[in-house]
């Protein structure tokens, strides 16, 4: 019993119950004072400190920790790559490419947002007031590029056009303007259809991140109708051999207010959405692991944690082999993937962030819901882009120790069965047109399971 609690209970009862105090009659005050005087003695001593033994020999047994690498055939099976998760629209940025890596063509489509209809201007008397009668005289289409993610280092020529066919932001592709259920309409010309040319511009990454197209008032007037689904802007790259990452775009409008016709004011209209279309669409790899892209790719695999370990000398020196592995003996578990070179057209230019989630019902793939992430870092397992280019062949570990324990146990902490299928995917889907590639089963760098197993003799009585 806690010492302070005991003493306080005694004192409380003594002080509360008058009858109890009468036990001590006229000595009541003396009893209480005595107890109070002794209270500090007990209280000071009540602070518990467990003695720390000085000799390591007081530790019973010495656990042994060994690293065990389990080959793919002993733990994995049924690798399958699924694509089509999300759409390029969800990324919110664009991609431009012209014969990049000899294959990739990509164009960005944008919807134009509503123009500002009112502006506060200074009239001829010098007073500022709202003016809703604005005359648009012209403007500029300004595109902002990601200088790091774009592959060019020299100036490139760009072309801006106005779309002329109705297209659907969420489902459009290189071939189709609209690709929804019961409504599949191909472009009259693959790659965004026929566009009305609006001009060209040059983007020189050494000078900045923007490219500017000059627009006349007629075109701007046509774009002001936001209900027309054929209205939009398409940006192409003219010079071949590059892939550009377009972050955003907007329109600078030159307008004349009626309250002060001698003045030109500049207004900004934003784009209401963007997507990109590209060709060719990559085929799923027959022998590898693919993660990422837009729409995104996921790789699904079945996994079984081996319940018996044998032929590990360090381990067998401590326990009898073959050793039946228990969940608590798994100190670390990770799926180790070996990176391989992604097709050049889709090679990452920024870090790829990998995630691993249990597949709750493999039978309904590709639509199975996924469980919570097995990676502690909410931003996933970061892999540098070089791993999929010049530095391919890197071993990338994806730790999932808790899952491995549950998988071996057959159930998680809540008592629910542990799914035996995992999905490898990007933390954010989709995140980029680029994707990560890893060696698949039956290749030199096939996935393997790395376990750190700690085994010790049972703790016995002294």
């Amino acid at each position: 019993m806690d010492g302070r609690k005991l003493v306080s209970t005694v004192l409380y009862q003594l002080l509360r119950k008058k009858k109890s105090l009468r036990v001590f009659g006229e000595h009541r005050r003396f009893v209480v004072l005595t107890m109070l005087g002794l209270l500090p003695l007990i209280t000071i001593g009540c602070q518990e400190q467990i003695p720390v033994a000085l000799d390591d020999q007081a530790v019973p047994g010495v656990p042994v920790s060994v690293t065990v690498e389990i080959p793919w055939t002993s733990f994995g099976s049924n690798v399958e790559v699924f694509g089509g998760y999300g759409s390029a629209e969800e990324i919110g940025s664009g991609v431009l490419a012209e014969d990049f890596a000899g294959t990739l063509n990509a164009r960005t489509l944008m919807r134009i947002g509503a123009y500002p209809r009112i502006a506060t201007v200074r009239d001829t008397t010098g007073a500022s007031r709202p003016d809703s009668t604005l005359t648009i005289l012209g403007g500029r289409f300004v595109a902002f590029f990601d200088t790091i993610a774009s592959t060019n280092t020299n100036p490139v020529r760009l072309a801006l056009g106005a779309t002329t066919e109705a297209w659907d932001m969420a489902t459009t592709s290189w071939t189709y303007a609209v690709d929804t259920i019961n409504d599949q309409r191909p472009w009259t010309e693959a790659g965004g259809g026929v566009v009305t040319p609006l001009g060209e511009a040059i983007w020189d990454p050494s000078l900045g991140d923007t490219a500017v197209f000059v627009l006349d008032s007629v075109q701007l007037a046509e774009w002001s109708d936001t209900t027309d689904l054929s209205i939009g802007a398409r940006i192409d790259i003219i010079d071949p051999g590059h892939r550009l990452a377009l972050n955003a775009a907007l329109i600078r409008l030159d307008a004349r207010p009626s309250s002060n016709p001698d003045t030109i004011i500049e207004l900004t209209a934003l784009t209401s959405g963007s997507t990109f279309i590209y060709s060719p669409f990559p085929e799923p790899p027959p022998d590898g692991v693919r993660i990422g892209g837009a729409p995104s790719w996921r790789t699904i695999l079945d996994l079984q944690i081996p319940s018996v370990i044998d032929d590990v000398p360090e381990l067998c020196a401590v326990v009898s082999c073959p050793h039946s592995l228990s969940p608590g003996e798994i100190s670390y578990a990770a799926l180790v993937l070996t990176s391989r070179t992604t097709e050049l057209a889709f090679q990452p230019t920024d870090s790829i962030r990998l995630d691993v989630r249990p597949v709750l019902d493999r039978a309904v793939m590709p639509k199975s819901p996924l469980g919570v992430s097995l990676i502690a870092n909410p931003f996933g397992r970061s892999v540098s882009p070089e791993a999929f280019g010049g530095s391919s062949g890197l071993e990338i570990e994806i730790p999932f120790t808790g899952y491995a324990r549950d998988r071996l146990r057959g159930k998680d902490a809540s008592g629910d069965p542990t799914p035996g299928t995992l999905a490898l995917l990007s933390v954010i889907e989709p995140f980029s047109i680029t994707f990560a590639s890893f060696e698949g089963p039956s290749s030199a760098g096939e996935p393997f399971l790395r376990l750190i197993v700690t085994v010790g003799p049972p703790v016995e009585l002294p």
Partner: protein
Amino acid sequence: MTRLWMTSARVAGFLLLALTSTATPAYTQSLFNAAGLGTPVDALDGRARALGSIGIGLTGGSMMQTDPGGLARLEISTGIMAASPSWIDYSASNSRSGTFKGNRFPLLGIAYPVLGGMAAIQISSVLDQTYEVTRIGETDLGDGPVRTSDAFTQDGSVSNVNLGFSRALTDWFATGLTVGRFAGNLDRTLVRAYGEEGVAGNVDTYVESGVWSWTGWSLTAGASADFESLRVAASVQVPSELSGTAAADTRGSDRSFSIPVQYRVGATAVLGPSIQVHGSAVFADWSKMQDDLSSGYAKSGSGYGMGIELSRARLLGKDAPLRFGFRQTGLPFAFEDESVKERILSGGLGLVLNETAGFVLAGVDLAIERGRRSSANLTENFWRATLSLQTSGF
């Protein structure tokens, strides 16, 4: 007035009973807890502590399980509770030193007149087994050496729940018998952590633990005899094996330990109206347990103690007998193959809070001890206070 006294006394009695029923097994602290089955804890009250007693042969009644014959001398219903905080500083041969402290309740008990004698229920401490230790090492996980930290914690104790009966067969001779049951648990847990301290890594901790419950029986028989100016008492405690039964999910095995028969003798001589001299001794050969141990060494746990009580002393107008004592006992378990002695100088006083017709209805006994436990590689110096509160007549 008498009814009021009785009612109030019953309240106090029930309060003490409630405290007794909620108390956990008590134990004390020492670094020697890590040796063998731990450090023995004597279930003594403040008076016995102050007199350096083994717990037998003191004048008056006794609620201590070590003195069954003294139980009959209580004559009226009695409850007792002892608290024992201690402060320990240690130094080891490897230049390590430090301090720790703790508070324990080694004795809780209540006695009531039954069948012309006294029946008692006591919860007393037997062995304190709590300690922790950390071993730092290295292991190679494939990418070079990694620091490992093996933190071992042992938490538990052996206590004894006793049911005793004692009766005065004549005016000068009383005998008693106590049946005790060993109780308590021992939780031993080893946690291996990887990497530098305070740095979170990917490698999870490894935990290996086991929980054992202690069971066993003990039978203590004793007698005390009063001669003209002399009280003599003796007792023998015959225990069964102490069995540690592993919990269902414990990988470790069940074990049994042979607790030795313990003989105790004690005597108190009244040299004058205000002076009493006390001596007592215990004989127990724990070394027979050596074969049962997988670590540590079992030694003799015999010892003796002596003291003097000046019973005429007064404090704040109350009777406050002064006591002084010396005690030396052997620790039954040691790290090395050597005997470890515990030597204590003690002093204390008693305060009679209320006394009627020669019966002490409420009293407090306080003991302060300065002691040393010393082996070749480890020395512990400690201060220990023992405060026991005794109420009677409920």
